[in-house]
């Protein structure tokens, strides 16, 4: 039976012995990530449109809503307080949009038969998805840099050490990475890239609005206050706000006494890791049986 593998060899090239599971998995993921980054450079529209939306949100919220939204504890009519309050929310919302990108990208690969190609190769099973989510992480980081510059230009300031500010951005990126796994699962589950885009976006609106991102939860009905404060998304917003020094002195962290609001940094890490663990498992399982 071994003759079958050796006989037909016209060229001396055979796949080398398979490496160990982990190093193969890392290498394959990087190969796929590189492929997705090259695509990103060749289709810059995607990155550019990905930037316009959060910039629009920053401008709209700051200048349209900002004047009318009162942050409890802040001087009435002071626009600077809302600007500082808002940015962590906008940053967090922006990173969750990676979901739609990952979903659409993977659905497109399925549609075009690339997933079949990958699945027929002796590569690590999770690498196609990990490579995609890693590339999205790079894109998200770029978007955050541009957005931070815009925010600084319109008056956003941080009040903590550089290390803390960077830690804040790290938590935001971790959340974005976690959400791109949700996107990966959506992308594998729908039939078309269009469905993945809309399927990846619609649920993000209630998720990001029923939170502490854009307005303080104080003004919400009691029931929504609980939802908002237990919302995984709120934990990262609160954590980033704390690490940026954008909280307002003397205002209690939580309205309902929810644990994640009392310990936002720890809660943010836990939530993100739980999302990654659950959705990575589901997505990789789905990938194994994916049928285009």
């Amino acid at each position, binding site marked *: 039976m071994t003759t079958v593998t050796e006989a*037909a060899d*016209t060229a001396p*090239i055979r796949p080398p012995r398979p490496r160990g599971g982990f190093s193969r998995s890392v290498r394959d993921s990087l190969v796929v990530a590189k492929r997705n980054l090259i695509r990103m450079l*060749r289709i810059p529209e995607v990155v550019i449109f990905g930037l316009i939306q959060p910039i629009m949100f920053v401008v709209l919220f700051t200048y349209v809503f900002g004047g009318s939204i009162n942050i409890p504890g802040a001087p009435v009519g002071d626009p600077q307080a809302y600007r500082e309050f808002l940015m962590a929310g906008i940053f967090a919302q922006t990173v969750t949009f990676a979901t739609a990108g990952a979903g659409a990208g993977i659905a497109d690969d399925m549609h*075009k*038969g690339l997933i079949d190609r990958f699945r*027929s190769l002796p590569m690590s099973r999770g690498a196609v998805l990990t490579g995609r989510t890693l590339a999205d992480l790079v894109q998200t980081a770029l978007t955050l840099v541009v957005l931070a510059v815009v925010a600084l230009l319109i008056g956003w300031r941080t009040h903590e050490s550089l290390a803390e500010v960077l830690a804040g951005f790290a938590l935001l990126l971790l959340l974005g990475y976690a959400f791109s796994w949700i996107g990966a699962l959506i992308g594998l589950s729908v039939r078309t890239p269009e469905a993945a885009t809309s399927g990846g976006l619609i649920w993000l609106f209630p998720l990001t609005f029923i939170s502490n991102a854009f307005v303080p939860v104080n003004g919400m009905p009691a029931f929504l206050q609980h939802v908002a404060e237990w919302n995984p998304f709120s934990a990262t917003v609160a954590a980033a706000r704390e690490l940026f020094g954008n909280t307002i002195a003397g205002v209690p962290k939580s309205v309902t006494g929810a644990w994640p609001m009392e310990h936002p940094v720890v809660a943010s890490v836990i939530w993100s890791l739980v999302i990654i663990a659950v959705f990575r498992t589901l997505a990789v399982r789905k990938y194994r049986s994916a*049928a285009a």
Partner: protein
Amino acid sequence: MPGAIYAEGLVKTFGDVRALDGVDLDVPEGTVLGMLGPNGAGKTTAVRVLTTLLQPDRGKAVVAGIDVLAHPDKVRRSIGLSGQFAAVDEYLTGRENLIMVGQLYQMSGRDAKRRAAELLERFHLGDAADRTAKTYSGGMRRRLDLAAALVVSPPVMFMDEPTTGLDPRNRQGLWDVIQELVAGGTTLLLTTQYLEEADRLAHDICVVDHGKVIARGTSDQLKARTGGERVEVVVHAPEHLTVADEVLRGFGKGEGTVEPHTRKLTIPVTGGAKLLAEVIRELDLRGVEIDDIGLRRPTLDDVFISLTGHAAETADGNGSGAGAADAGPGDAGSVGKQKKRGKAGAAADAPDADVTSDKEGVK
């Protein structure tokens, strides 16, 4: 020992649809099996099962000596797949696509680069190597897709409708490439809707419909099943029909037909062009004036239509019965036997046995 591609009793259902309904295959090493069938016949499903992309509900599959269900990752190292949709990344260049595939076959970066350069030359993509695949023509994309499937010179190749949608010139070009590949000893399973393609490239052909293999054999054997060669004559005057019929009976190898309204006579023969010349001489001698005469050989199209056409419209029994009327007792047996084998699951029973009996039945 089973062939390089071996399947036994493969069943796969999607909801109510039995995409594969007990498929047996045995492709000897170094040969090409053409899998012929209409859209939705189960060809792609069969390829997906054999290339580890899909788990069958039941059955056994062995590729390059490796059990597909038990060791899918080992199988993946020994196969190349070229799909229906030309699965290359259109935003990568030809070279980048091939390097990526090489690396995912676990080659080192340097080897992958070297191999990519070789393949680009071999597939006449050298000039376009550093352009994105988006700018390629349909034929170039298929060539790139094929090159991607050949990165590790796999001993077993699967091509799912490799030329669907290509213009005749590009199809011809791809056929040349495939023939070259097969000459190098690669075992190939090729699905196609084009009979000409199967005729041209495949050593053996199996016709698939409704998830079942409904016929198999070489192209000639399958053609023979639909009646073999026949002489068709159209006489000028109706009154000559009787004489012409008499002449043809002298040469015929079976019952002929006469269609008075079209003045056409048809009779099965053996002997080819030489015999045709004799028929013409004899008709001339007997004073029969002819409008048209010709030797008709059935095309694979005839085979295809007679097999799948009946199967689609009438019960299975009728379908194979109609085929058997022309070709002899071997045919009816082949379908029945296949079903039995599916149930009993006898491993060593080679499908070739059917073909042999077909041949004997005809000759």
